[in-house]
C-alpha cells in the first residue's frame, strides 16, 4: 500500500452546502471518494490510499488538474483506491464534487 496527501489552496469555495458525500466503490479498477466540507474555504486536501505502488506523480497530476478545474475549496477529500485508472479517478472526483454542489 502507498498513501499520499496533497494540499491545495483554492481561489474559491465549492458551491453548495452539503456536508458530506461518498461515491464509487473500492473494487478492481475502481475507487471510492469521500468528500467532507470541513476545511477553510480556500483549502482542499486530497488523501489517497492505493495498493498500486509507484504512481505518485500521476496522482499528483490528477489531483492538481481536478483542483484547478473544480476549485473545491473547503473540502477534505479521501480516496480508497482499488487500482483505478487516472480517468476513472478524475470521473469519480467530478462526480463527488457534483454531489457536494447538490447537483443531480
Amino acid at each position: 500500500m502507498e498513501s499520499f496527501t496533497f494540499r491545495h489552496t483554492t481561489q474559491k469555495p465549492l458551491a453548495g452546502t452539503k456536508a458530506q458525500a461518498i461515491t464509487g466503490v473500492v473494487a478492481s479498477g475502481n475507487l471510492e471518494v469521500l468528500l467532507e466540507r470541513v476545511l477553510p474555504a480556500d483549502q482542499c486536501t486530497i488523501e489517497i490510499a492505493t495498493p498500486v505502488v509507484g504512481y505518485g506523480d500521476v496522482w499528483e497530476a490528477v489531483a492538481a488538474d481536478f483542483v484547478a478545474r473544480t476549485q473545491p475549496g473547503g473540502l477534505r477529500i479521501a480516496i480508497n483506491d482499488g487500482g483505478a485508472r487516472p480517468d476513472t479517478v478524475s470521473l469519480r472526483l467530478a462526480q463527488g464534487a457534483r454531489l457536494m454542489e447538490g447537483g443531480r
Partner: protein
Amino acid sequence: MSLSWYEASARQRVAALLDAGSFEEFVGPEQRAMSPHLPLFDLPRAFDDGIVVGRGRLDGRAVYLAAQEGRFMGGAFGEVHGAKLVGLLRAALTETPDAVLILFDTGGVRLQEANAGETAIAETMRAIADLRRAGIPVVGLVGGRAGCFGGGGLIAGTCSRLAVSEGGRISVSGPEVIETNKGAEEFDSKDRALVWRTMGGKHRRLTGGADVFCDDTVAAFRAAALDLVGRAPAFDLATLEAEQARLEARIARFGDCRDATAIWARLGVNDPAGVPALSAADFDGLVAGLEGTTHDAR
C-alpha cells in the same frame, strides 16, 4: 429505465428502496470504521467496510436495514462488516422497528478475517432469532452480483421471508468451490446456465427457498419488501416443525433428481427448459398455476 438492483451499489439500493430522504446511516463512512486487518494483506480498505447500516422508512413504516456492497471484497463478512450487522440487529431488538431488511450481496466469509467473519455470522443468526422471537420480521433481499453464498446463505435461511431476483443466487458452497473440491464432473462452474438453475432465484422460488421472485429493479424489491414484512411467520416450534416437514418432503419428492429441470418437471412445469427465459410476470403466472409452491414455514 428503472434502476437495476443488480447494477446498483449498496448505497444506491438503500436510497432508492426507502422513502425518499428517509435514510439515516449508523457509523457512516466519515467515521472511517475500516478493517484493521486488510492492510496486512496489502489490500485496500473501504470507509464502510462494504456494508451500509441504518434506519429509514418504507412506505411510512420504520425499518432498520443493512446493505452489503458486493463489489468490495465480494461483499464478504470481515470483522467490522459483520460487527456492523450484528450491532444493527441488536439495536433493533431494543428499538423495535416495524421490520429489519437485509440486502444480501455476499460471497460469505472474508478469508483474510475468516475467524471474525465466521463468528459474526453465528452472532447474526442468533440476533435474527432473537428479533423474530420478539415479533420483528427480518426480511432478506437477494439480487446482487455477489449473490448470497457461504454463511450468507445460512443467514438468508434464518430470515422470516426472502425475496430474490434472477441475478440472485443462494447457496452454501459456491460453484467454484464445489468444482475445486469435487471436480468439474460434479459441478462445471463455467456452465453458468447450470449455476443459475441450481442456485438461482427461480429455482429457489419454485422449490420454497424464497417467498417472492421479483424483477431486477429497485422498485420491484421495494414492492416485495412491503409485501413480505406484512406476512412474516412466527419463530416457534410450530413453524420449525412445519419447516422440518417441508424440507423432508422436498428431499423425498426430488431427492433423486440430478438437475433442476427434472424437479421443475415433477412440480408440473410443462416446459422446464423454458423456465430460465421467462419474464418475472410470466414466471409468477407459472408459479400461481402450480400446486405446492407456497411455503409458509421458514
